[in-house]
C-alpha cells in the first residue's frame, strides 16, 4: 500500500508544517510513500530542500517501501510547465533523482548558472562541499547583494560566512548529508521588496539529539526540541565541550542583526526564529508535527525602509 503526502501548492516555510503533518502521519506504518507535487504552483528554496530531506528520511526509515529501504519513495512532478522548469533550474531534480522514483516529465534544462538562483540546490555532506558552496556564492552573490539589495559590498563576505556556518551545521551535527539553496526574489506578499534567501535542510539527528548528552540535565523537565533550539540559537551552546564552539549561529545572528535579516530553525517538533520588525513570525513554536533533522531559513531583505 502507498501512503500519499500532498506537497502544498505554495510550498514554503509557512506551509511546511502542513507538509510535515502529512509526512508524520504517512510514515507511521513504514509503507511506501508518494509525494504528490502535481498541483504545486510555487516552492521556495526552503520547500525544495525540505522536500529532499523528506525523501532522504523516507528512504532511511524504510518509507520507500520494501521494508529495507531498497525501493525509493515516489514523487509526482509538478504538471505546470513553468513550475517544472523552475524546479529543474533550481537544481531540485538533479538531487531528487537519487532519492525518489519520479513520475512526470522533467524538462532537460540545466541547473541555473545565472538569474535569481544564486546557488542551485546543492548537496552538503562534507567540509569540501562547504568550500565549494562558499567559493561559488562569492562569485555570484556580490552583484546581487550590492546592486539589488543595497548591501555594502563588504557584506558579501559576511554573507558567505553565514552561509558557511549554516552548512557546517549539517556536516558537524546532522550525522548525514543535506542540501543548501540560495535564491533572490521579489517578496511581494510580505515586504514588497527583494530578498535573498538561504535554505538549508537535512533529515539527520536534529538539534535535540545532538545536544542531549551535554544539555538535557541542565534543562531538566523542560528538555525537548524547543529547549535544544533555544540553547543552540540563543545561548550559543554546542555539543562540543571546546569553549570556542557555538560561534557559528552567534555569528549568523550578528550578521542578520546588522542587515535586518531573519533566521528560523525548525527541528523535530519545534521552530525558533529571530524575528525582525518587518516580520510577524513567532519567536518559538513547540508541539509542531515531527519532522526529522533540521531546516534552516535565512532571509536578508533589500535595505531601506522595511514596511510590515
Amino acid at each position, binding site marked *: 500500500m502507498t501512503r500519499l503526502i500532498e506537497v502544498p501548492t505554495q510550498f514554503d516555510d509557512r506551509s511546511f508544517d502542513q507538509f510535515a503533518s502529512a509526512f508524520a502521519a504517512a510514515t507511521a506504518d513504514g509503507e511506501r510513500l508518494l509525494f504528490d507535487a502535481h498541483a504545486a504552483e510555487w516552492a521556495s528554496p526552503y520547500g525544495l530542500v525540505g522536500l529532499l530531506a523528506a525523501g532522504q528520511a523516507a528512504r532511511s526509515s524504510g518509507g520507500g517501501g520494501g521494508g529495507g529501504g531498497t525501493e525509493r519513495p515516489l514523487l509526482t512532478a509538478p504538471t505546470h510547465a513553468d513550475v517544472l522548469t523552475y524546479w529543474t533550474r533550481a537544481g531540485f531534480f538533479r538531487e531528487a533523482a537519487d532519492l525518489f522514483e519520479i513520475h512526470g516529465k522533467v524538462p532537460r534544462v540545466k541547473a541555473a548558472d545565472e538569474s535569481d538562483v544564486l546557488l542551485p540546490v546543492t548537496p552538503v555532506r562534507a*567540509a*569540501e562541499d*562547504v*568550500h*565549494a558552496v*562558499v*567559493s561559488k556564492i*562569492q562569485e555570484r552573490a556580490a552583484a546581487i547583494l550590492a546592486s539589488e539589495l543595497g548591501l555594502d559590498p*563588504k557584506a*558579501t*563576505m*559576511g554573507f*558567505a*560566512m553565514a552561509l*558557511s*556556518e549554516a552548512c*557546517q551545521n549539517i*556536516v*558537524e551535527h546532522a550525522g548525514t548529508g543535506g542540501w543548501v539553496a540560495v535564491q533572490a526574489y521579489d517578496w511581494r506578499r510580505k515586504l514588497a521588496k527583494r530578498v535573498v534567501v538561504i535554505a538549508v535542510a537535512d533529515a539527520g539527528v536534529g538539534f535535540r539529539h545532538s545536544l542531549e548528552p551535554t544539555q538535557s540535565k541542565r534543562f531538566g523537565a523542560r528538555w525537548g526540541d524547543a529547549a535544544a533550539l533555544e540553547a543552540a540559537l540563543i545561548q550559543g551552546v554546542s555539543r562540543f565541550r571546546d*569553549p*570556542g*564552539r557555538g*560561534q*557559528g549561529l*552567534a*555569528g549568523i545572528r*550578528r550578521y542578520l542583526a546588522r542587515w535586518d535579516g531573519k533566521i528560523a530553525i525548525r527541528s523535530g517538533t519545534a521552530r525558533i526564529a529571530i524575528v525582525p520588525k518587518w516580520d510577524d513570525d513567532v519567536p518559538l513554536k513547540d508541539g509542531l508535527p515531527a519532522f526529522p533533522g533540521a531546516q534552516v531559513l535565512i532571509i536578508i531583505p533589500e535595505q531601506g525602509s522595511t514596511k510590515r
Partner: protein
Amino acid sequence: MIQHIDVHAVLQESVSGIYTDLVTRPTGRVVRERIEHAMATAHGAVALARIDFTRVGCIDYSCADEIVAKLLRGRPAVLVLTGISDGHREAIEPVLAGHRMAAVIERSDGTLEAVGAPDAAVALLEELVARRLAVRTPGGTLALTLA
C-alpha cells in the same frame, strides 16, 4: 627573529589548490596544525610570528576560532596578524572577544592595533612595548621594532 607565515600558501598546501577561503573546522584545524608545526620547527629563536592573511578570501567564525584563537591560546610566540581585510576582522574580532582574548593586527602602513576583548587588547599592547617588540611612533601609534 620574526617568522613569516603565509596562510594562503598553507591553505593551498593543506586542503586544496583551488580554494582561497578559510572555512570549516576541519580546514581550520589542518591549517593551524601546519602553522604550529612551522613555528615549532623554525631555526633560531622566534620572538614574533607574522601570520599573513593576504590572498585569503573569506574567513568564517569556525576558522577564526580554530586558527587565531587556538594559536593565541597555545602562544608559542607573539603573533601579529597582517593582510587582514574588513571581512576577516568581522570573523576574528567577535571570536576573540568571546574568548576574552586579543590579537595584534599590523596595518598596511605598519602601525599596530589590538583587536578582541578591550581589556586584553590594552594589556597586549602594553606587553609588546614592555618587551620592546613595539615602540610608540611620533604620531602616537605603535609599530614593531623588528622589521
